[in-house]
């Protein structure tokens, strides 16, 4: 098979929170091959977001190695697009100017006219058409998420790191956006690492789902989702295979919720 895009080997990450050492990740091994869509699920605070930060080159592992296309991750990793859980739109830029920002940078500068066209297309795609001149402070939380998603997708990075991108969206819009993400990543042959709380979302979208344990996070189970790609995000939920995967993964996951039983 192809060389892995992302490769974590024996990765641990410790955080020093005011003198108290907290272990966020412990012995994580994960391989993401080209054009695979890998979802990370697990309880809150299990270190899923830390994995993304490591791959993005914003954090260094305390032990083990994080490699991107065979080499240690650069700081920061400019070959990925990263949509963090936190809002990182620039408040003084309009929605259109925020989305067009990556195309203003010298490394992929486009002319004004072409940039404008691409921004218009992108806003159409994420359902923000007509809101280009608004400022982030004038939008709802869900709309800001969509703007951040558009800003990342517009420059089509080869790998996407997504941290609960659809968490704040209403159910209908969530489906539309999931479908668009599936279509786009398939079309552009992107590799995706996707953090979510939503098991249904993970199974519907991903080729592989990694279930994390409670903190310190380890991968409890890595499950291949053998549903044919590309999928219809809505109808795939009603197939018997889907229900099987859901049962299987939910049984793994539910043991990580609830109290007691921690090693």
């Amino acid at each position, binding site marked *: 098979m192809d060389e892995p895009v992302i490769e974590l080997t024996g990765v641990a990450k410790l955080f020093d929170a005011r003198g108290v050492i907290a272990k966020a990740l412990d012995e994580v091994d994960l391989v993401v091959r080209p054009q695979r869509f890998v979802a990370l699920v697990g309880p809150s605070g299990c270190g899923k977001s830390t994995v993304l930060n490591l791959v993005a*080159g914003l954090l260094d592992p305390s032990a083990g190695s994080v490699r991107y296309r065979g080499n240690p991750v650069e700081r*920061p990793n400019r070959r990925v*697009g990263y949509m963090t859980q*936190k809002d*990182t739109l620039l*408040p*003084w830029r309009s929605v259109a100017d925020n989305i067009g*920002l990556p195309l203003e940078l010298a490394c992929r500068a486009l002319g004004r006219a072409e940039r404008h066209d691409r921004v218009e297309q992108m806003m159409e795609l994420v359902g923000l058409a007509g809101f280009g001149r608004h*400022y982030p402070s004038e939008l709802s939380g869900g709309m800001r998420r969509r703007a951040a998603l558009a800003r990342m997708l517009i*420059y089509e990075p080869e790998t996407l790191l997504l941290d609960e991108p659809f968490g704040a969206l209403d159910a209908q819009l969530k489906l539309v956006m999931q479908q668009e993400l599936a279509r786009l990543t398939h079309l552009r042959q992107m590799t995706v690492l996707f953090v979510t709380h939503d098991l249904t979302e993970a199974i519907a979208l991903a080729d592989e789902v990694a279930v994390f344990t409670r903190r310190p996070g380890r991968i409890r189970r890595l499950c291949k989702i053998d549903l044919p790609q590309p999928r219809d995000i809505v109808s795939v939920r009603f197939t018997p295979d889907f229900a099987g995967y859901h049962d299987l993964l939910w049984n793994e996951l539910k043991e990580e919720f609830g109290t007691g039983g921690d090693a």
Partner: protein
Amino acid sequence: MSASARLDAITAVTQERRPARAVPLVAVGRVLIVLALLLFWQVASDRLAAQLWVSDPADIAVRLWRWTIDGTLGLHLLATIEAWGAGYVTGGLCGIAVGFLLGIARFADRVLSLFIAALYGLPKLALLPLFVIGFGIGLQSKIALVATVIFFITLYSTRDGVRDVDPDLIASLRIMGASRSEILSKLLLPATLPWILTAMRISVSITLVTTVGGEVLSSNRGLGFLIASSSARFDTTGVFAAATVLVAISAVVNALLTGREAGASRWRG
């Protein structure tokens, strides 16, 4: 961060008193008050207090007219505005530049902050004799004084503004592929701009006070010099005439600044 809190408080106050302007009744009331005070002053002079101590509005008006015609007013007004403006611009820009450097280079900031804080606390007027020795009694010593005052105001404000930029925003731009200069131009500069503008705004009146104060203490030109030299000759009318011009300047400047306030940025929601 108390400096920034103070700046915010000041901005909040200046932004609050915007409405209730279009009412002509307010203007009429204001004019009436001024007229009544002037009339009282005119009548009371030499009745309630000696003319030598309090002068009177008619004399002051005559004096202002004479100064305007013989060029005295122009000379001194220009000197004050020149010292004020030149010090404001050079000191302000230097403060912004150094503020940016310290905001970005944390290590330099840690090393230097002690010295900067010590100098900031020093009453700058006390440095005037030094500046006069170094730059002479003319405009340059006043420019240096004003520049020193505004330098620290814009320095602190710019530095705090740069520090206040969310590190996650910087990280997201770097991942997007932004170079160092692009992070400066697309993130740090626009994010810090409101801080800089607030510092520049509060500095306007602070530096005017500094300019005139410096001129009163030691100078050979300027409105402050006019006040000091008139007072030395027990020329109360001259003191009041020069003070009147200062009141007018202050009123004009404040009107201009509050007018600009209306165009405050929409993105701050």
